[in-house]
């Protein structure tokens, strides 16, 4: 049977591995190239301005904006996936101290795990689309995480009272 503790600990370690694997893939195959392109487009923009070519300068800065937007999100995905995974594992370890029924604990655990997957995924999808769907996904994910952690906090507080 899947328990809240099992879900959080195994899900948390799997999420941490996902975040690490993603970070490693990004560092090896994309990061250096992306950083080089960011610097290159910025320099190209200012060089074009020095040569009094405003259209080229604007185009280069727009390229810089896109690259920087994607770079910030790639780094955020890596950091948030692992950070949230650590929180999931810790909550799983401390599950005995949450004074709720197993059903409520499982519900909160599922919410926290789902939110921890959806939030970075929403941020990652923003690198493909600037529309509102990826942002919405990230908002839903973060709301799920916050609500679940607040629920667990309440459970810890009840344990304190009952003991």
């Amino acid at each position, binding site marked *: 049977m899947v328990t809240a503790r099992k879900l959080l600990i195994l899900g948390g370690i*799997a999420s941490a591995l996902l975040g690490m694997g993603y970070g490693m893939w990004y560092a090896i195959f994309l990061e250096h190239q992306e950083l080089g392109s960011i610097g290159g487009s910025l320099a190209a923009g200012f060089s074009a301005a020095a040569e009094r070519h*405003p259209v080229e300068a604007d185009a280069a800065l727009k390229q810089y904006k896109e690259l*920087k937007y994607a770079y*910030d999100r790639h780094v955020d995905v890596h950091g948030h996936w*692992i950070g949230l995974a650590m929180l999931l594992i810790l909550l799983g*370890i401390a599950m*005995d101290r949450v004074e709720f029924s197993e059903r409520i604990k499982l519900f909160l655990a599922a919410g926290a795990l789902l939110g921890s997957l959806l939030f970075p995924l929403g941020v990652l999808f923003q690198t493909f689309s600037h529309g509102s769907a990826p942002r919405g996904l990230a908002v839903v994910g973060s709301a799920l995480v916050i609500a679940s*952690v607040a629920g667990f906090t309440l459970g810890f507080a009840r344990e304190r009272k009952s003991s």
Partner: protein
Amino acid sequence: MSSSQPGTSTQAGARNDTAFAPMGARRLLALGGIGLILVGMLVGDMFAVFVLHQNAAKVGASLTAAAHAAVAGDSKSVLASFQTVGGFLENRGTKVDTHVHMIAFGYLALMLAILQPWAAFSEATKKRLAWIFLFGAWLLPVGVFLIHYVGLAYSPLEAIGWASIAADFGGLLVMVASVACLLGLGKWFQQKENQRLRDDLLDDHSPAGRILLAGGLTLVLLGFFHGAYYAAVDLYKHEAMDFSLLSQMTAGAVANDMGMVDSALGQYGQLGGEKAVNIAAHAHAIEFGLLAILLAFFQPYVRLQEAWKRRWAWVLLFGSLLLPVCVLLELNYGLLAGGIADVGGLLVVIALVAMWIGIVRYTGEIDATTTNAGGTP
């Protein structure tokens, strides 16, 4: 791999001292993890005091030089200035990454230490995995730190140097050890309830542990709320401003308008500061919260008087709150708030050292008992 754990109690309520055996996996990970966090924090403090502001000033100066060269129509100087900016940013980035990865791996080590009795492997296997993890956890940040200095010297690859390769190998080792731990946990969860080994560490409900758990969760939630607020209100505004200010600089250069360029440069510096303090406050509140929660579990291993354990718990939480709050206040109160934030970081380090000493005292007691009993040291 055997699922038996020598010396681990199967009786509820019995203190399981051998789970913290000399050079055992849990002890290696606990002391190694706190060591990583302490060194990572000290690296962060030294970086903040000696590198961060000086580096930011150099980046600002190089950007100013590039913008002024653009106004003067000197595209060669523009490129030279941006090459300098790239060097400064790489220096900054690698030092931040060293700090962040060392602390993150320290947290992960502490977590794996807590989970050790649940990993259904023999102690020898667990010890090997702990060494692999710790080796990788030190190799990655050291490799990242050296990237700026080693560069592409003697590298067989076009864009990645030896320091990066070493760092990536360290990351791979950490991943291998973590995957193995996941397999061990999976095996443990498959065991029947009566076959599972109990761990008394998690049964502790001491006041210091409760203070750290409640305080840690509060810090994590505060960090979440701040992050959500920043993402909703400021993030996209800041990204738009970043682009519009750079556009303003190039437009000013094309129009030969030095006043416009200087105004944009000033606002750009301020924007960079705003982004940095918000991200730092968000990250530090959550990381310190996680640290407090982790340390809550290790309180039974801290051999200090109960009153002192409580005091150090409060010191850690106070410092953990002081740092992110004062980092946010840096925008309005400058170096004064920055100095107080550094004091907050120092309080966390002092409390952590005190707890680390407490754990060493506890392990010393076990070692003495083991030696007196004629057991394997």
